[in-house]
């Protein structure tokens, strides 16, 4: 499985963010997207996720499930965590598991993995910043997708949480998954660096 972009260009709000960007990632490989604030890291992840339309170039996934589009094979973990404060932790997770469909894992187990098993029945609105992030991570575990697109995933995680997350990423890669992560902090795993917009 190989994800590759050729000459990708991005325009937002009528202004060109970057252009002529080439990148590639293979199964079991992590790419960390780096660059200064406003360079276009988030934009690149959203382009891959199909949430922005490229102003030029192409992004293709070779060797994935031929029946599915690229976005359908991606998990996108952005700044906004897609949680409903009125629903409980378990309900939030169960909804995404049902809605996203496909191969899936025990929700209760994923909650235990990310250390939220004591909060299963709390409303998501009661969670602290780091706990919300952990709940988002549980979504990645419950529904299997080969490509993970992570936007500053370690934000708000405590030290133990970052270690736990490092373990999850390594496991995902070892199963043949692929990770594209935009970060300013070290990711905690071996990764290839993709720099956008010159040195910071």
């Amino acid at each position, binding site marked *: 499985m190989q994800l590759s972009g050729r000459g990708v260009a991005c*325009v937002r*709000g*009528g*202004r*060109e*963010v970057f252009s002529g960007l080439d990148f590639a990632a293979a199964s079991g490989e992590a790419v960390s997207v780096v660059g200064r604030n406003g*360079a276009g890291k988030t934009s690149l992840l959203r382009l891959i996720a199909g949430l922005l339309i490229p*102003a030029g170039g192409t992004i293709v996934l070779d060797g994935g499930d031929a029946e599915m589009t690229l976005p359908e094979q991606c998990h996108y973990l952005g700044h906004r965590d897609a949680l409903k404060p009125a629903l409980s932790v378990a309900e939030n997770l169960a909804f995404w598991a049902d809605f996203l469909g496909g191969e899936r894992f025990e929700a209760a187990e994923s909650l235990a993995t990310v250390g939220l098993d004591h909060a299963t029945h709390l409303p998501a609105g009661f969670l602290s910043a780091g706990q919300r992030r952990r709940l988002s991570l549980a979504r990645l575990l419950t529904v299997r997708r080969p490509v993970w697109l992570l936007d500053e995933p370690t934000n708000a995680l405590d030290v133990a949480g970052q270690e736990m997350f490092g373990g999850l990423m390594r496991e995902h890669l070892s199963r043949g998954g692929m990770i594209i992560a935009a970060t300013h902090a070290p990711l905690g795993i071996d990764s290839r660096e993709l720099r956008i*917009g*010159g040195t910071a």
Partner: protein
Amino acid sequence: MTLIDLANPTRFLALTARLLPWLAGATVILLAIGLYQAALAPDDYQQGATVKIMFIHVPNAWLSMFVWGVMSIASLGTLVWRHPLADVAAKAAAPIGASFTFLALLTGSLWGRPMWGTYWEWDARLTSVLILFLMYLGLMALWRAVDDPSRAARAAAVLTLVGAINLPIIKFSVDWWNTLHQPASVMRMGGSTLDKSFLVPLLLMAIAFTLLFVTLHLAAMRNEILRRRVRSLQMMQASRVAFSSGAREDGASKEVGAT
């Protein structure tokens, strides 16, 4: 001359610059003939001299629908073919179409007073035209409210296409519901029932108003293209100021405007 050639705004400006004087001339001449013929037309045995209102009411009413039709096609151009001039065309047409609709409503109600004894009646034809007018206003409001033209264009296109459902309702409202308004007599299956002495000036006026629309529309499109050029140049100027202050080391904000 193909649609592809027109896709280049600069070429469009050049072409219309040459075309516009001729169009304007033709409009004026036809309008003059039409008005003259309308003045010569006899009084109707039922409606008396008020039938003269027909010569402006009907062309305006037709155009109010025609312009929305043009906008709908332009909207397809925006959404499906992503033709660069499509949203310019749609945006420029809206105020003109709204004016025609307003005039159709106004002349209609001025005609209604002597004919039906009331300026306004909530019947299907009148109501559907009023909805058309409100939708024109809504579209114009939408264009004004959103400063990013491409974003506004796509939203407006969806709304225009949804609103196009109103067109057949206007057209056939007189057939579907028995209303005060008269049924179609010119554009109907099986030929016109209108007397020639009315038909000729009416058609002349209709053609004249259509030409008027084309002229105004092209001119308004030119303005719109220039407005976008101004906008993108101003944004370029703003970012150039930023470069001179040394905030950015690379050209991270190249402008991508309409032209």
